[in-house]
C-alpha cells in the first residue's frame, strides 16, 4: 500500500492475466488479482474488481474459458484457464508489448 503505486496501463491487464494463467494454470478471479499484485510487488494500484470486465473481455474473444469448481479451501469459485487461441495470442501480445516498451525506453533514455 505504498505511495508509489501506479495505475494499470490500459490493455496491459489483459496480458498480465494471460501470463498469470499461462504460468499458474487454472485460477479463480481472486487468485489472479492477488498474483498480479504479488508479481508487481504491490506497486500496481488495482481495484481488484477491474479484473472481472477484463476476464469477460478475454472470454468473449475465446482466449480463456471459465468454469465453476471448488478451491483448496473448499469454497465454490469460478476458475479460469487458457484456451488454444489465448496461448497463441500471448506470443503476439508479448511481442507487441516488448516493442512498445523498447520504444518507450528509447524515449526515456537520458543519452538520447
Amino acid at each position: 500500500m505504498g505511495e508509489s503505486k501506479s495505475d494499470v496501463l490500459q490493455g496491459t491487464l489483459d496480458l498480465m492475466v494471460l501470463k498469470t494463467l499461462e504460468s499458474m494454470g487454472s485460477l479463480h478471479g481472486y487468485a489472479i488479482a492477488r498474483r498480479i499484485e504479488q508479481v508487481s510487488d504491490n506497486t500496481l494500484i488495482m481495484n481488484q474488481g477491474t479484473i472481472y470486465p477484463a476476464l469477460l473481455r478475454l472470454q468473449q474473444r475465446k482466449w480463456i474459458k471459465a468454469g465453476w469448481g471448488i478451491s483448496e479451501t473448499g469454497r465454490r469459485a469460478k476458475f479460469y484457464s487458457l484456451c488454444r487461441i489465448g496461448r497463441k495470442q500471448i506470443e503476439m501480445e508479448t511481442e507487441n508489448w516488448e516493442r512498445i516498451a523498447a520504444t518507450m525506453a528509447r524515449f526515456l533514455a537520458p543519452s538520447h
Partner: protein
Amino acid sequence: MEPIRILLSRCSALFRRRNLDEDLDAELSSHIEFAVEENMKRGMSAQQARTRALREFGGVTQTKEAYRVQQGLPFLEAVLIDVRYGLRQLRKSPAFAATAILTLALGIGGMTAVFSVVEAVLLRPLPFKDSGQLLSLHEWVREDPHEFNVTAPDVLIFQRESKAFTGEGGYVGAGYDVTGAGAPFHAAAERVTASLFPVLGVDPLLGRTFTQKEDENTAPVTVISYSLWRERFQSDPGVLGKTIDLDRRPYTIIGVMPRNFEFPLDAGRLSRRDLWVPMSFTPVEKNSEGSNYDYGLVARLRPGVSTAQAQIDVNRVIAGIQPRYTAVAGLHLQGYFRTLKEETVHSARPFLNILLGAVSLIMLIACVNIANLLLVRAASRRREFGVRLALGAARRIVLRQLLTESLLLSAIGGTIGAALAVVLVHAAAVHLPDSLPRLGEIAIRWPLFAAASGFAGVTGVLCGVAPALASMRTDVLDSLRDGSHAAGQGRSQYNLQSVLVILETALALLLLVASGLLLRSFAKMLETDPGFQPQHVLTASLSLPRHDYPTQQKVDEFYAELQRRVETLPGVRTVSFSSNIPIVGQNGGRLITPEGHVRSVGEGFLIASTYLVQGNYFQTLHIPLIRGRYLDDRDVQAGAPMVAIISQSFAETYFHGKDPIGLRMKVGDRFDGPMPAITVVGVVGDVKQGALDQPTVAQMYEPISQAAAALGPMAAMLGVAGNMDVVIRTADDPSRLLPSLEKIVHQLDPLLVVSRAHTMDEIVAATESSRRFNTAILTAFAAIALVLSLLGIYGVLAYAVAQRTREIAIRMALGASRKVVLLRTLRYALTVAVMGVVGGLIASIGLTHFLKSLLYGVKPLDSATIAGAVLVLLCCSALAALIPAQRAASIDPMRALRAE
C-alpha cells in the same frame, strides 16, 4: 472473425441476462470471501477483514455495471427497457391499448389484403413476355350495339394483311370428352393457331407447341396444362408422345405448359383450360363471313409502331374485308383493339375500385381513430410528463419513451394486421367471386404491407408524440397547476378531436349508404323472378362426339332412348333436352326478321336467343304459357310445319304488341331471303338467361327436329346438334337422381361423359354468389367503420367528461340537474353526429354514382337507403354517447370538488 465472436457472445448474453447476473453475483461474493479469509488469517477481526476486502475490491456496483456494459449491448438494452416500460404503460390501460391495436390491425390488414388483390388482378402485368405490347382485336358492326370478337376468316386475313404487328394468334373455346387418361372427363380446351404461343412469348415446360403445318393439316396433337399433367399423368416427364382421346379421337401430347400459364385469361376459377389443340379451321369456318364472331385475336404490336399507327393499319385491313360483308349481310364492319390486359381486367375494375375505395376509407377512419385515441391519451398524461420533467427527467428520454410506446402500438397492430392480411388474402383467393380474372395470381404483397404499416406508424408517431412535445414546451408548472388542464390547450385539443370525430362519422355514413345500396340491390335480386321454377330440377350436359354420331338421326335416336329410359326412373316427373338452359345459357342468338318488317337504315338487328328443345321442356322448367300452345308431338312428325314459341319480350319488341300467334318470321336479316318461314304458335314468359340481376333478352324455342330445316341453306353451319343439356324435373331432391342418370347414360354409351351436373337451385345460387360477396364485404366494411366512429365519439366524450369533472361538479353544485348534464353531453354527441351526417351526405351525393355498376333495381341516391343509414348512425351515436353522459350525470359534486 474476432468481432463476430464478440458480437455473438454479447447477443447470446442478452437472452441469458438473469442467469449471468446471478453467476456474476456468486463469483464476486466468492472473491470477497477469499479476501476476507486471507485477511483474517493475517490476524484481522472479521469486521476489519471485510472492510479491507471491499476496499481492495473497489466498488462492487461499479464493477457489476462495467461488467454488464462489457457483456451485453447497451443501446439495445436501453431500447429494451423502453419497450418494457412501454408495454407496462399499455398494460395499465388495456382498453386503450386493445382499441388502438385492433384499429391498427384492421386498417393495416384490410388495406394490405385489398391492395394485394388489386395489385394481382388489376395492376400486375400479364404473365406474358412484354405483355404491354399485346393487343386484343375486335370487330363490331355499325348496325348492332354489341361488341364482338372476330370471325374465323378475319383471323386469317389479319394474319396475312396487317403490318403493324409482329404476329397474331387466333383462339376459340372448345370442349372435349377426354378418355385414355384416368376416368373420362369433360375438358375445357382452346383451339389456337400455331402462332398463338409465339405471340404470347411463352415457352412450354416440356416439349413444344404447334407448328404451322400441324395447324394447317388438322394434325391430332395437343399441348396439355400443368395441372392436367400433374393430376392425370403424375408429372411423368415421359408424357410427350403419349396419346389421349379427345372426343374419342387419339391426339398425341407434344407439350406441357408451365404451372402458371393460363390462356385465355377468363374470369373465374373454372375457366382454366386443360389443354390446347391446333385451330385447324374447317372449310365451313373459313367461309363463315359475318356470321360467327366468337374467335379471339391477340396481336403483338411491332416495336416502334404507335397505337395510332396500328389503328390506321387495322382500319386498312378492315376496309379490305368490308365489301364481302356488305355483300353477304349488309353489315358495316369496324375494327378496334385494346390492350390484352385492359381486356382481361376491365370487367373486374369497378368492383375492385370500390373495394379499394372502401378499404381506403377504413384505413383513413382507423388513422383518425388512432389520432383521436392518442390525443386523448397524451392529454390525460400531461400531468405525468409534468411531474417527471419537474423531477428532473430529460425531455429526450421522456420523448424516446413516448416514441417507443407509439411504435410499440404500431408494431403490435402491424403484426396482427399482417396475420390478418395473410388470412384475408388466402380467403380472397378462395372466396372472391368468379366474376374476377387472375384469381390464381393473388398473393400477399409485402411492400404494400410495409406501406400500410408505415402510414399507420407515422400517424401513431405524429399523434402520439406531437401533442406530448407541445405540452412539454409549455411551462412545466402550468401542467402541474391544479385545474388548468380543463381550459386553454385542453379546449383547442377538444375542438381538434371533434373535427376528427366529424370526419370519421362522415366517412362511416358514406360506407353505410354504400352498403345499404348493395343490400337493397341484393334483396331486389333475390326477389327477381327467374321466369321458371328452379326447385326440383336437375341439369347435366352431354356432348355426343360427331365421330360416333355423324347424323342428326343418330343423335335424335340417342336422346329419344335416353328420355324413354330416364322417364321410367322412380321420382322423375318430366325429362327434356335443350341446346341452351337459363341462367348459364348462351346469350348469343340469331338474327330474326318478322314478316312485313322493313329494317330502316341504322336500325339494330332483331336478335333472339335460341333454344332447340326436345321433350317437355316448358313443363319441366315450369315456364308459363301466355298465349297459344307449347310444342308437342305434332311438331316432331316428319313434314310438320315449321313452328316456334317466342318469349313475351320477343313478342313485345318484335311484334309491337300485336297478337303474334300465327304470324311468321325468318332467320336472317331479311324476310324476302331464301330461308324458310317459321310460324309462331305460342308465347311463354321470359326466363333469365344470365344472372338474375342481368337484363332479359328476347328468346325463341324451336323443336330440335326442325332446327336444321329452319336454317335452310345455312344448315351446314349448325352441323349436328349433339351437345345438349338434359333437364329433368323430379318429385324430390334432384341431386339424388344423378347416379341413376349416369348409369343410364353409360348403358347407352360407356364412353360418354355426364358433365356440369347441377341442380337448377345450385345454378341460380352460384350466380348470386358474386353479388352476395360484394354485398357482404361492403357491409362488413360499413360495420367496421361504424364501430370505429362510435369508438371515436365515445372516446372524445369520455375524455371530455373526465377533463371537465370539476366544471360539471360546479354546475351541479350551483343547481344544474342531472338531466340537464345528461342532455348537454348527449347534445354535444348529436351535434357532432349531425355534422358528420351532413358531411357524409355530401360525400354520398358526390360518390355513390361510382357504385352504379354494382347496383340492381336501386338508384345511387335511393332516399330510403340514405334515410336508413342516417337513422342507424344517429341512433348508434346516441348510444355511444350514453355511457359517458351517464357518467357525467352521476358525478357527485361534493366528492368531485374535494378530490380536486
